[in-house]
């Protein structure tokens, strides 16, 4: 199988642009693999009895660091590998459980170039399960301003996240 690699540049983005929706069926394995991948050993992410009896929720639930990884995956699916994540701020309103289908949507909130010449895109991202807003995220990602630009080559004073 071959995969076309997107390398999105800043001139291809405008405020208000939506990102393609991502839907994913969450299983207990999703939650447990996500917790182990982030070295999060807290029992509410693998122990049903602890989650329901101590935390008072209906099942084990997706942990915060793995949600960060999901946001990154969603954003870089759109940007391609030249997109460089700079800042991510998310709020968890409700938990994501096995059996849920989580749906990621997003839109572009800002497009600009800073004084060092770095191209920036701001995005608002939402993860919902049916009519439940589970997590909201504001992200800032650097994109190449031209096809031969590379945000990853920026360091020190030339990287202002």
């Amino acid at each position: 199988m071959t995969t076309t690699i997107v390398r999105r540049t800043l001139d291809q983005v405008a405020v208000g642009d939506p990102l393609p929706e991502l839907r994913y069926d969450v299983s207990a394995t999703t939650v447990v693999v996500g917790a182990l991948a982030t070295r999060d050993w807290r029992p509410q992410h693998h122990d049903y009895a602890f989650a329901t009896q101590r935390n008072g929720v209906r099942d084990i639930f997706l942990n915060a660091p793995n949600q960060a990884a999901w946001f990154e995956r969603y954003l870089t699916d759109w940007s391609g590998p030249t997109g460089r994540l700079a800042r991510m701020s998310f709020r968890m309103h409700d938990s994501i459980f096995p059996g849920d289908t989580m749906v990621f949507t997003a839109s572009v909130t800002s497009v600009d170039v800073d004084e060092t010449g770095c191209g920036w895109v701001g995005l608002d991202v939402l993860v919902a399960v049916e009519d439940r807003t589970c997590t909201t995220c504001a992200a800032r990602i650097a994109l190449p301003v031209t096809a031969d630009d590379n945000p990853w080559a920026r360091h020190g004073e030339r990287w202002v996240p």
Partner: protein
Amino acid sequence: MSDDDLPASITALIDVPRYDETSDFPVERGYIWTSCASTENANPLYWDDDVAAELTGGPIAAPSMLSTWFRPHHWAPGLDVQRLPLQVHFDLKDQLGLPEAVMSDNTTIFYEPVRPGDVISTCQRLRSVSAEKQTKLGIGRFWVIDVEYRNDRGELVGIESWTGFGYRRDAA
């Protein structure tokens, strides 16, 4: 309780760097691939060494994995008590008598990329503790804790800010 009831021992901790710690192990690619697998992340930066060489001068860790590198082993020889990540959070639970806690907000700023072989050091700073509040989980307090991450060359690789809510369920 009000803001005035916040113990002086807690107020004294605000903005003080604590728990200077070095990761148990160098950043390694196994965890990077496991993280990508957990989210079905096909970004070639993490799977294709040619792409990594072209864009980032070699393999890097996914930026969102930052906190992975400061979480202690679940068990290690000679440890009588399990070490906990974000120890300031657990200290607050104990000192404020709030047995349950959840994280509600996270903000992370990414600086230099983290690379396989890096040894990451961290320190934690308590930034604020709220007055007691009633939520659907119970009565408790919100707090904000920053974690600063540096590699073994002293370069800043990230700053993470967590908002936690410690609470008592029986008070709901």
